[in-house]
């Protein structure tokens, strides 16, 4: 396994070349990936709002945003500027503190979860051993923010929306975690890097989607429900409860909710790519092609190509999933709240338990194909 490009090591080395100590050089490095990631995630979320408009327009045989920039690409920027300059409205008898904290409680955990999303062998902010478990744990904070928003707004629709959102994300977190657990069982590790490397050997044939088809479907359904995407967007079902917990929010606080929901969608799609679609690996392994041409894997230019291809692959897979999610949103009707909870507790939960059991059994039977003993 070739290590690929290690930006941190080269950056630290370069700074040491300028006469800095190793500690100081690392201190300069630390904030860089974080700032880069926050910026990149914001852009990715904005891109998906643009995609949402364009694909919904295509689904309804409209054109969609057209005049703001090429193909309406500046619409997200216009959105941001508009929301930044809007007036902050605080409805009467709200709880000002909780009203202000709630959007942050929803927004911060989502951005924090990007810590563990890998774009390459060393293209990750931190490769910690608990990896995906950190994502599951951190994303369980968001329901508190939703309940807080619902309570603080002093509006019965908000409260109903907040309660629905919390109930929904608690219900769907369990099948989600169980299907992640099945993948972890095969990779013998929670680290996202190890999970991707477990799928790296045979190109597209080695991806987890072939070994975990049931888990993949369960994960995607549960992820859609966690993101409150349309078949499951009960918390903000506009015909019933106006806009759910967001009803009373405006300006920047609304933007936090809005950006948070799209960032969460991108995060879920990226996690699908990591867990089931081979992460940054190409369908045909680059190493194989390089060997065919006769180029060593350690060549500098090849490593640059591999790294950029990894990022492109990761984003391509993620946006493929986002495309499916958006298409689902504009073609599928909304489920009722009892159907939603039935699906979660009576169908997905047992099926995901069976999937876990099946994976464990297959791992014992065919250790070669399913992870094998540690």
């Amino acid at each position, binding site marked *: 396994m070739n290590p690929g490009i290690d930006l941190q090591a080269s950056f630290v080395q370069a700074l040491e070349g300028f006469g800095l100590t190793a500690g100081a050089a690392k201190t300069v490095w630390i904030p860089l990936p974080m700032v880069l990631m926050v910026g990149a995630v914001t852009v990715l979320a904005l891109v998906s709002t643009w995609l949402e408009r364009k694909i919904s327009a295509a689904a309804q045989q409209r054109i969609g945003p057209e005049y703001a920039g090429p193909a309406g690409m500046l619409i997200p920027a216009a959105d941001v500027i508009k929301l930044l300059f809007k007036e902050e409205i605080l409805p009467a008898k709200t709880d000002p503190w*909780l009203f202000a904290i709630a959007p942050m409680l929803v927004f911060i955990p989502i951005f924090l979860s990007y810590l563990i999303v890998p774009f390459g062998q060393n293209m990750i902010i931190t490769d910690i051993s*608990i990896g995906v478990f950190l994502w599951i744990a951190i994303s*369980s*904070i968001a329901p508190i923010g939703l309940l807080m928003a619902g309570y603080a707004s002093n509006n019965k629709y908000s409260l109903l929306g907040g309660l629905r959102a919390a109930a929904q994300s608690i219900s769907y977190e369990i099948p989600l975690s169980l299907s992640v657990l099945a993948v972890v069982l095969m990779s013998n590790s929670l680290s996202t890097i190890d999970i991707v490397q477990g799928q790296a050997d045979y190109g597209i044939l080695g991806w987890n989607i072939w070994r975990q088809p049931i888990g993949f479907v369960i994960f995607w359904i549960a992820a859609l429900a966690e993101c409150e995407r349309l078949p499951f967007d009960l918390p903000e079902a506009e015909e019933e409860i106006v806009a759910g917990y967001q009803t009373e929010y405006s300006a920047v606080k609304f933007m936090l909710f809005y950006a948070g929901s799209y960032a969460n969608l991108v995060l879920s799609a990226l996690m699908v790519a990591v867990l089931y679609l081979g992460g940054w690996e190409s369908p045909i392994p680059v190493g194989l092609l390089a060997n065919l041409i006769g180029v060593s894997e350690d060549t500098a230019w090849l490593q640059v190509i591999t790294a950029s291809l990894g990022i492109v692959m990761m984003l391509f897979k993620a946006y493929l999933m986002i495309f499916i999610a958006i298409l689902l949103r504009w073609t599928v009707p909304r489920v009722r709240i009892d159907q939603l909870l039935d699906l979660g507790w009576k169908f997905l939960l047992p099926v995901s338990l069976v999937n876990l059991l099946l994976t464990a059994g297959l791992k014992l039977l065919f250790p070669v194909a399913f992870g094998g003993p540690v």
Partner: protein
Amino acid sequence: MNLADGVQIVSFALLAAMMLGTALGVVLLDNIVYSAFLLAGVFISISGLYILLNAGFVAAAQILIYVGAVNVLILFGIMLVNKRQDFVPVEKAWIGKAATALVCLGLFGLLGTMVVATPWTLSSAPIAGDDALVVIGKHFFSDFLLPFELVSVLLLMALIGAIVIARREYLPEEADQNPQLTVPERPRELTTGGNR
């Protein structure tokens, strides 16, 4: 002192202050909803302390279970039980509060002396760090097997009990009171606690 130590000390001070502040808020504030939200702050700062102690898995589990499950359930309980009741001011309520404060301070003093007086023996084993997950798993299935299985049986009992209470398919006192005028189906009102 290098950078890592400084960061550690500063974050310990911040986490400790946050934990004490939120915990006092849970106890002292009158609004029960604030108390419930601040409880999440207590749990999050505890998990931060776990991270400082190199126990990443325990920290994540703390957030998942206490913040994500227990605290959300508490909030659900508070928000669904919407009982508006005016408190009747009690004469000389300060006596009760003073007694509570006295008992709490006494307990605090007792525990504090215990912590200071006990000669703690520090383990010399190397910190598990990233392997903690594997070590915990091995303990669960060797020397801690019995407690682990007992806890799982306890949780199963709670689960089944909750389902039995929630389903209420057969209510003995109602079986003979209401003649069957509807189609044989479980009436909806029972689940919401209507006119029973």
